[in-house]
């Protein structure tokens, strides 16, 4: 009951936040000098009447505050509006979200499955050659910009011919049976996953290692050791449970990155996810699409934090006691 009340309170708190985010983004986009109609105006074969009609259709003839009001009302009603081409925003997003989710969830799953154990092992074997090598490798991983790494891997794919040049499926995908479809997608996913994996693994492993080292140094671990518990029990029962809490907060942020974290890599790999869609929308000042994606980002961030907090309540008795 307490938890439910807490969740409800948190959701209420997000409302003013979302209003602020939407107001700021809307005004920044509209006040930027990008005119969605500039191309039309400079096209010799388009009549001034058509330009005027487009202006009315996009609602650009009204003051910004009215435009915002209109957008906000339909947003609250659950209607994301239409893109500047007249397609439904919700449909456009729906087309892309599964692909982005596929990519990011594989990456998150992999990094957590690999990063957390690596962090623990490194901490337990502190200052051994194994730990040192890992530290160097993760430094490299953190230092490479994802964009640059993606381009390098693409060049590698061109030179060797071992991997496809971006995309998600082969042109003859439709004629494949299920097994081959699965293989085809996996084959296309290797490079983008490799890029995102390398970069996020580095951060996660270091974080886990640092947390673990902190905990291993604390008095209760020393006490547990002094009590004569086996090293396995000390590390995995006593230390790990305490070291994992900051990671849960981190998980909340990772959740927020599910939809937007891979944009650059998606762009380089020509991956049919949200990244390319939103980039183009921003360039063309396609307001409904940009707003929808920004709001989506904000909601995901809030939701991620909420989930992390709830998980913390479950894992950490100290928070429960306080509330």
């Amino acid at each position, binding site marked *: 009951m307490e938890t439910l009340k807490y969740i409800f309170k948190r959701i209420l708190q997000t409302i003013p936040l979302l209003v602020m985010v939407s107001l700021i983004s809307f005004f920044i986009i509209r006040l930027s*000098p*990008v*005119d969605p109609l*500039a191309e039309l*105006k*400079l096209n*010799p*074969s*388009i*009549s*001034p*009447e*058509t330009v005027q009609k487009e202006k009315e259709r996009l609602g650009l003839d009204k003051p910004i505050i009215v435009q915002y009001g209109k957008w906000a009302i339909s947003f609250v009603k659950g209607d994301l509006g239409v893109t500047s*081409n*007249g*397609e439904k925003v919700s*449909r*456009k997003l729906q*087309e*892309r979200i599964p692909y982005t989710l596929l990519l990011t969830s594989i990456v998150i799953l992999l990094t957590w499955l690999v990063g957390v154990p690596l962090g623990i092992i490194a901490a337990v074997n502190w200052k051994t050659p194994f730990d040192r090598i890992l530290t160097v490798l993760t430094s490299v991983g953190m230092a490479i910009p994802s964009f640059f790494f993606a381009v390098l891997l*693409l*060049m590698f*794919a*061109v030179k060797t*011919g071992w991997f*496809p*040049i*971006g*995309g*998600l*499926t082969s*042109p003859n995908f*439709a004629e494949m049976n299920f097994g081959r479809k699965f293989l085809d997608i996996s084959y296309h996913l290797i490079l983008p996953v490799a890029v995102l994996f390398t970069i996020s693994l580095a951060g996660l492993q270091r974080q886990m290692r640092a947390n673990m080292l902190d905990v291993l140094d604390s008095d209760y671990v020393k006490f547990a050791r002094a009590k004569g518990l086996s090293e396995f029990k000390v590390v995995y029962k006593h230390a790990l449970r305490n070291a994992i809490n900051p990671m849960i907060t981190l998980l909340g942020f990772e959740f927020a990155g599910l939809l937007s974290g891979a944009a650059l890599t998606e*762009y*380089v790999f*020509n991956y*049919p*996810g949200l990244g*390319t*869609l939103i980039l*183009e929308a921003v360039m063309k000042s396609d307001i409904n699409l940009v707003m929808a994606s920004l709001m989506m980002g904000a909601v995901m961030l809030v939701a991620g934090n909420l989930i992390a907090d709830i998980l913390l309540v479950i894992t950490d008795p100290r928070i429960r006691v306080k509330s």
Partner: protein
Amino acid sequence: MNWRVIRVILVILAVVLLLKGCIVKDIKPVDNSAITQKETVQNVEYPTPKNVEINGIDYLQSQAPVGKFGGELITSTIGQGPKTFNPFNSKDNISAAMSGIMYDGLLSTHPVTGQPVPRLAKSFEILPDGMTYIIKLRHGIKWSDGKPITADDVVFTWNDIIFAGLGDTSTRDSMVIDGKLPTVRKIDDYTVEFETPKPYAPFIRSLSASIAPKHVFAPAVKKGGAYFDSFLSTTTKPEDFVVSGAFKLKEYLPAQRVVYVRNPNYYEINTKDEKLPYLDKLVYLIVGDLNNEILKFEAGEIDVITLQGAKVARYKTLEPHSDYTLYNLGPATSTMYLSVNLNDRKNENNKYYVNPIKQKWFQDINFRRAVDLAIDRKNMVFNIANGIGTPLFTPESLNSIYLNKKLKPFDRNIQQAENYLKKSGFYRDKKGNLFDKDGHRVEFDLYTNAGNTEREAIGVMVKQDLEDLGMKVNFKPIEFNSLVNKLVSTFDWDMVIMGLTGSPLEPNSGKNVWMSDGRLHMFNMRTPNEGKKNILPWEKELDEMFTKGALATSFDDRKKYYDRYQEIIYNEKPMVYIYSPVIINAIRRKFKNIYPSSLNGLTHNLEEIYVEEK
């Protein structure tokens, strides 16, 4: 102790080696001019398809060599892919091309001569009055679902879709003559008559508009404009398309690809009387940007590519060891120009749009001549377009069928330019700075849109060239929208570098730029209230040429008017043309029946292209 020294040395060594590895020997500059000169436009004789009648069916017969059936062609499109597959609702080029593949028009353009040739129509005839067009349709040809293509489809398309203003209205807008639309009438099941209110030559090009199957479109048309806008959108099931073109949609995956398959009912056959097209599949990969496209071509994922200037030299040297051939399609239809603001009027606040001191220079023909002579076009082609371009002196693009070939190119001539300036009383002080006869320093702004690297590079070179005459040029690349605003609303600019894409087939498409009250008459733009205020004599003549050119019907008559218009611009220089990039395409050698066309591109005859297996 020694350990540390050794470690330091090792690290330094590693860094030095790494740096050494990064410094590649300077790549030898490749002289591209040799390539363009050696490789003039391939003048290919295209075997024009003929009409043949077999068992009462009027087929179109390809005269190209007979090929093998099967295989696929994979090409690409940059950006977000099509927004719709409805040919009457496509507002962007990609959507228009993607739907155009499926819906043929009555006429199309001959790839070499640029003249209209029959496509869905069997033949066409323009009556001597210049207003009546009689179109005969093919007997017995079918839509992809087996229903016959008849005059009803044509009349329906024109009356209920195009003239009714459904979807994209640009076709309709371009045909309004004195506020009236042409009319269309069914004579019998296979004959249609069009009539324009006045003789209006550009109309014939409109007949290449797609024809819709009435039995599919009629229910959608009945539901009105809003429904029509979402009809045959990218979410429509591929099975629901009923097409007349060589290929039919098979699959569309957003941001991934568009796949077409052969239309079994297509009306073109080869000389062995087998139904075309040869290819089983046509695939468009939707790629994010140019770099991705190039990588995909190099990895063999796509078969055709348009090469940018900088890449041509490398591809040319690789060509003999590769599986592709380069084709030079000639100059592009886009033109790059430097325009001078000739506006001499005041705005509603009674202030001049252009500073009166500057007005005097810009209005002076000698000043404009000097600017024209000072610009080093060859140098720009060499340095900016990597040699893959041609200097340009006329407003019509170099592949236009109306190009006035009498207007001769000329080289940079600073001496002559100085003479022209002297004639108008301009003089230079000891430092070489240019002053006008009233003692004002010649200084003005040159704009272009920021972000367009090509135009920015041209701007820098124009600035240098004009500074050789002692002018002070403030080159200001500004944001595209602000620039458009300056050009079409506030008129507060001096000189600008811009580009326009015209039609190589129809100069009338540029009338908005050249007519004195046109919406894009940038060099002397008038507000709607001003009408034709302060019209210059040569502007008046331009108006006349464009009015007469649209009304004349025979090609030769029209050519005379349009030759004169180009001559006026060439002499009066309100816009100084700079260069046209040359289009170079590469396609894998296994594809046969390739007839590159400067007007229609490399793969305009998709139905005739086949794959030769090795």
